[in-house]
């Protein structure tokens, strides 16, 4: 589904990603862990197409298509979803209006008719349940005045509405208490199937008790320095990141 090959990327003149290789197949959950500043969010932003990040080398294909030839909105419509580490507030634009526009853009891309308002509301109610979002949030402005946890839940709600093929969750667990963490994980697990994939970026192992990954990668200094199974996450939890830093300080 996603093939990242020797990806190098710069921001403001500094190279942050120094040759990433990663392949994700349908149905797989990959976790990326690593200390702060190692380039996890940069990788997510490059995949989603944020334009201040410049790709200098390497390739990324999504379902065989070169993603660098697609605008960010096209990547979204093709099925790449990013749950932001810091979701943005859009004052005056209701969640419902925003989501309806987004969903209908996705439908248009697939050659489908826009959704009837009534059907759309039904869908929203159904998906909101997955992440225990109160329908009164529908008419509130996107993320405006939301608590940190509400914003993160809202990201997963949007994901549930858009049904992406590849979901990248950038530290969706940070700032969540244990109940919220459960809600978010239950949401992800409910949406999981053999056709869609997840790239779960996290700083802590804790999330991976709920969303069990098939593979765990350690990103350090812009490179994937270690890959393994979920046991690697447990090892990191136990030993911290210092031994990784020690082992790979030359890069």
């Amino acid at each position, binding site marked *: 589904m996603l093939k990242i090959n020797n990806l190098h990327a710069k921001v403001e003149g500094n190279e942050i990603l120094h040759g990433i290789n990663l392949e994700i197949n349908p149905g797989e959950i990959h976790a990326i862990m690593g200390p702060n500043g190692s380039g996890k969010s940069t990788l997510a932003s490059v995949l989603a197409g944020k*334009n201040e990040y410049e790709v200098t080398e390497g390739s990324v294909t999504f379902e065989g298509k070169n993603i660098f030839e697609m*605008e960010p909105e096209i990547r979204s419509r093709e099925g790449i979803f990013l749950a932001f580490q810091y979701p*943005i507030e859009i*004052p005056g634009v209701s969640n419902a209006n925003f989501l309806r526009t*987004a969903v209908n*853009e996705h439908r248009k891309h697939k050659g489908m008719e826009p959704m009837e308002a009534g059907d759309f509301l039904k869908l929203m109610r159904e998906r909101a349940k997955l992440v225990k979002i109160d329908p009164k949030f529908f008419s509130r*402005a996107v993320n405006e005045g939301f608590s940190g946890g509400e914003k993160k839940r809202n990201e997963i709600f949007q994901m549930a509405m858009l049904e992406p093929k590849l979901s990248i969750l950038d530290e969706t667990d940070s700032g969540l208490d244990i109940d919220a963490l459960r809600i978010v994980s239950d949401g992800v697990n409910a949406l999981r199937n053999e056709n869609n994939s997840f790239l779960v970026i996290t700083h802590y192992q804790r999330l991976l008790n709920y969303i069990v990954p098939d593979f765990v990668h350690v990103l350090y200094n812009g490179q994937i320095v270690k890959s393994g199974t979920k046991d690697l996450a447990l090892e990191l939890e136990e030993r911290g990141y210092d031994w990784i830093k020690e082992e790979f300080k030359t890069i």
Partner: protein
Amino acid sequence: MTENDKIIDNLTQGEYKYGFTTNIEQEFSPLGLNEDVIRFISEKKNEPQFMLDFRLKAYRYWLKMKEPAWQKVHYPPIDYQNIYYYAAPKNKSKPKSLEEIDPEIRETYKKLGIPLEEQKLLAGIAVDAIMDSVSVATTFKEKLNEVGIIFCPISEAIIDYPELVEKYLGSVVPYTDNYFAALNSAVFSDGSFVYIPKGVRSPMELSTYFRINASQTGQFERTLIVAEEGAYVSYLEGCTAPMRDENQLHAAIVELYAHKDASIKYSTVQNWYPGDKQGKGGIYNFVTKRGLCEGENSKISWTQVETGSAITWKYPSCILKGKNSVGEFYSVAMTNNYQQADTGTKMTHIGEGTRSRIVSKGISAGKSDNSYRGLVRINKKAENSRNYTQCDSLLIGSECGAHTFPYIEVENNTAVVEHEATTSKISDDSIFYLNQRGISTEDAVGMIVNGYAREVIMQLPMEFAVEAQKLLAISLEGSVG
């Protein structure tokens, strides 16, 4: 230039879709302005003597005045002798019913989305359609008459209800008020007249649609709305004009008069031709709008969505004379390319317990310049009066300007005056967030702008709110891409 600046640049280059002209035979006054032209206009309209006297007094006063220069807009001097002050679709005799209207004119309004056949109109909205200097159709007249409401072209009101017109015309905006008010008083040719009798709530929205068609003409319309005790009316005006290289002058006056317990809601969606991307052509929109809350507990509310005109210069204002009267001003003013807007309001608190609320949302894109200018004045006797002002500016791109000039004059220390102001930009992060959900940058900017303007848009009657939202998005086209 960052990628988003480029996109923004593109979005602000939307095309004006009302820029066509109608080929109809027109009748003009002689070019330029003098007493004979004024007599010509008055005669054309079969006006009673008092009107001619009013016009001539205004004209003679105007001659002694100087064009104002304090506003933050720039334009070459206007040659007042190179304008036609009267242009009217030629019609052998006045159409007696809507069916008799010239098919070309009917077609024009259809293109503008305003069918003149009553059965096709949005139910619940009566329209007075004005092309250049004259009213071409007023719909739902009979239905309104049943409840005693007068809604007709002001030229007709002058003949049919002279005592009402004589009593109220110039009572809120005297011809001595300002340069363009004097000019308008001298040469105005049509506009709408609304009279709501005591205790009557208008059963439908009333609206006027202004259309400039003829070239080299000025449009000087005059609207007068009187609400008697306990009356209520919601009134809406919309405007468009053809695309022309020349600048055309539009100098209107709107007067609102609210008696005790009366309430007038006046909404404007202004979309005059703004000129091309290089700033050539477009309407000069120099308008005086004022409402008098004469009676106790009366209320006047202005809502405006201004997206058009090369230059907009207007300050819909309220004089809060009646005890506990209320004035409101909700405004979205959007400028793009080389447009200039200097707009705001004046709230004059005279009576005790008077309240006013100002919500102004400026949006500037392209190389445009957008100023809010407001005056809140609390007179000595205005005990316990209150004002709340919120004044926001949104910048799109980096070549536009936004300015605020809030003036506050308080002579009574029991008054409470609050002022809040913000300036913001559409951030790349917001656009990217929406992009990531599948929304194109152009739509994202439209969405963000509409969200920003929401508080004002919500004040508009439903159908027009939808219209205004589309208009905001269209006017932004080309500012992002």
